[in-house]
């Protein structure tokens, strides 16, 4: 088992909360994990990414090489395209459709989604709307995790257990809400 994952977004969007659940699930299955993060200046509203690697054998590099990632999980559509050089030829792009426009020259949305549509393997998720339905817009990252789950080589049960662990201190209501968000995301990818 070996998965190389690029998590993408904008500083402050909380991509590391997605990573935390994947890490927890992977460790519970005794997989090795390496997760390179961006701290410091770029966190201030800039483009950020995290390289997350899971494997049943030893992992050497903290960074993923070009054309090697099994999937890109992006919480922002333009950011999903920024890391395409890292995606393997048969890799998946799982992206939210919620644009984060903090630059004046943000691309035209229609053109952007047309470009995403040309990708051979993708899941575009209405993350924020689904998160709201589940109980809170804040859970949109967990919606994205749900959408990515079938491609991560980790069982749904292990993910749900990890969500319970990660949100344990927040109470049962928050856990249930995040489980609903996870399932809503999962439904977007079923059968893909």
């Amino acid at each position, binding site marked *: 088992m070996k998965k190389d994952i690029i998590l993408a977004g*904008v*500083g*402050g969007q909380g991509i590391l909360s997605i990573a935390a659940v994947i*890490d927890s699930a992977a*460790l519970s299955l005794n997989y*090795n*994990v*390496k*997760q*390179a*993060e*961006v*701290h*410091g*200046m*770029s*966190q*201030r*509203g*800039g*483009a950020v990414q995290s*390289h997350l690697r899971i494997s049943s054998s*030893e*992992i*050497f*590099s*903290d*960074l*993923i*090489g*070009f*054309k*090697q990632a099994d999937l890109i999980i992006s919480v922002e559509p*333009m*950011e999903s*395209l*920024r890391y*395409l*050089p890292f995606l393997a030829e048969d890799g998946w792009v799982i992206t939210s459709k919620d644009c984060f426009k*903090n*630059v004046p*020259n*943000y*691309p*035209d949305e229609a*053109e*952007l989604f047309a*470009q995403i549509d040309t990708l051979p393997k993708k899941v575009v998720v209405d993350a924020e709307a689904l998160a709201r339905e589940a109980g809170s817009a804040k859970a949109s990252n967990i919606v994205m995790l749900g959408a990515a789950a079938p491609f991560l080589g980790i069982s749904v049960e292990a993910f749900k257990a990890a969500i319970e662990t990660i949100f344990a201190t927040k109470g049962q209501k928050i856990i249930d809400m995040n489980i609903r968000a996870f399932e809503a995301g999962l439904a977007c990818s079923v059968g893909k």
Partner: protein
Amino acid sequence: MEKMLLLGAEAIAQGAIDSGISGIYAYPGTPSTEITTYVQESKEAKEKGIRSSWSTNEKTAYEAALGMSLVGKRTMICMKHVGLNVAADAFVNSAVTGVHGGVILVVADDPSMHSSQNEQDSRFFGKFALIPVIEPSNQQELYDSVRFGFDLSEKYRLPVMLRVTTRLSHSRSGIVRNYSVVQNEFSLPKDPFQFMLLPALARKKYHNLLETQLLLEEESDNSILNSLEINNEGGQGVIAFGIGYNYLMENISAEKSNYNILKVSQYPLPRKKVEKLFKSSSRVLILEEGYPIYEELLRGYLSVGGATPIDGRLNGVVVREGELDPDNVAKALGLNSKNINPLHELIVNRPPQLCQGCSHRDMYDELNEALAGVANKHVFTDIGCYTLGALPPYNGANSCVDMGASITMAKGAADAGFHPAVAVIGDSTFTHSGITGLLDAVNDKSKVTIIISDNSTTAMTGGQDSAGTGKLFDICLGVGVEKEHIRTFEPLGKYHAENVAILKEEIAYDGVSVIIATRECIQTQLRRKKTEKKDEPLVRNCNH
């Protein structure tokens, strides 16, 4: 045993707690900050009474640690690479005095300058000071190296440098912990003048330091951190330093038998192992995360060099600048290079920017208006979030060189007749290295306007305590700035007009004026409100 998923930085911190440190001293700086933060937040560290609050700058941190070592205790000092420039005086001399309780200096370098002004390589400093340097290749080794480093430090009574780079510090991995050791007993050095560097004593101590070098080399040759594998007599050799080893193994772990590999994670260089590698290889590739320090040394000054050809950053086989990665190492190894399509033109840059609601935004709006119409506008700024004011839409700052340089460079320009000479400096940077420059300006009655953009935290690195919070007015007054020319205001849209007026008045003043523009960092404010909701209200220092 259960693994802890820790950032490299956190692995260092846990390693230090488990290795019996009595204190950790640091000034925040990416990518080193999380080491100290981890100790500050560790329940275990609190129970053990480990001292951990932030120092005013790297030099004060280093010296305090040296004092703690003098009385026999283990201590760790943490900083980013450019922080060591600030602490260099104490650092280099501490190699001559040696230490009593074990001392580890952690320096986190930032090749590729993700959050820095240069990519200087701290191994150079380690070699310069003639002390052992440890440069682990992964997070577990990082954790283990802390114990190893303290033992080495106390064996030779020398400070040990633990050098990491951004990727190792900011990447998480599973860590298996070692047993904990208790803190050292209080004790003074046998030699009451161990830390006395009068020239006559310093000469003797320096001589001893030089004599120790051979022993340190022998340590390196026998170290478990330095491993040599001769797999292919007469074949390709590689020296992989630190994290370079990971990128090497990422590429060749399946074909390892084709290569002779020397992994180096402890310096000085393990001479015998290096010689054996060169003897057994037809070519040697050198992978250094940082400057080509050892490549240059092994090549020698004369280009004729030794019998074995060397490849590395200096002959372009490895990229000359920036960090190593799996792809540039693959290329250096001559392995398959991948064709990468350029990014679609729709994808635009998304540079970092000041947060919505940030006080620096209002300060720049006000300053820009106060300076509107000024010919030769040039604002001297400093290291911190507010450096981002140089970018659009503000275009409000021009220079940023090093901690504190805004004040002193404005002063120098003013001394040459430049007006208006305006400096913008953050509160934490001001106490780190700005106060001495302000004293220079006061003593010379330089015509400078200094804006301390005070958000009451060290914001860029994530909101650490700032040494001058609540004290800035008194500091400026104490340094000798005239009371009527220390102005304070709250940078906020609704006060825009009056703040602009204050700035204009002080810019016109023929002498030193300081404007303290105080408003809490929006990020720390959000966090504080969250905490206050949960807990008792925090007691805040009141500002002038």
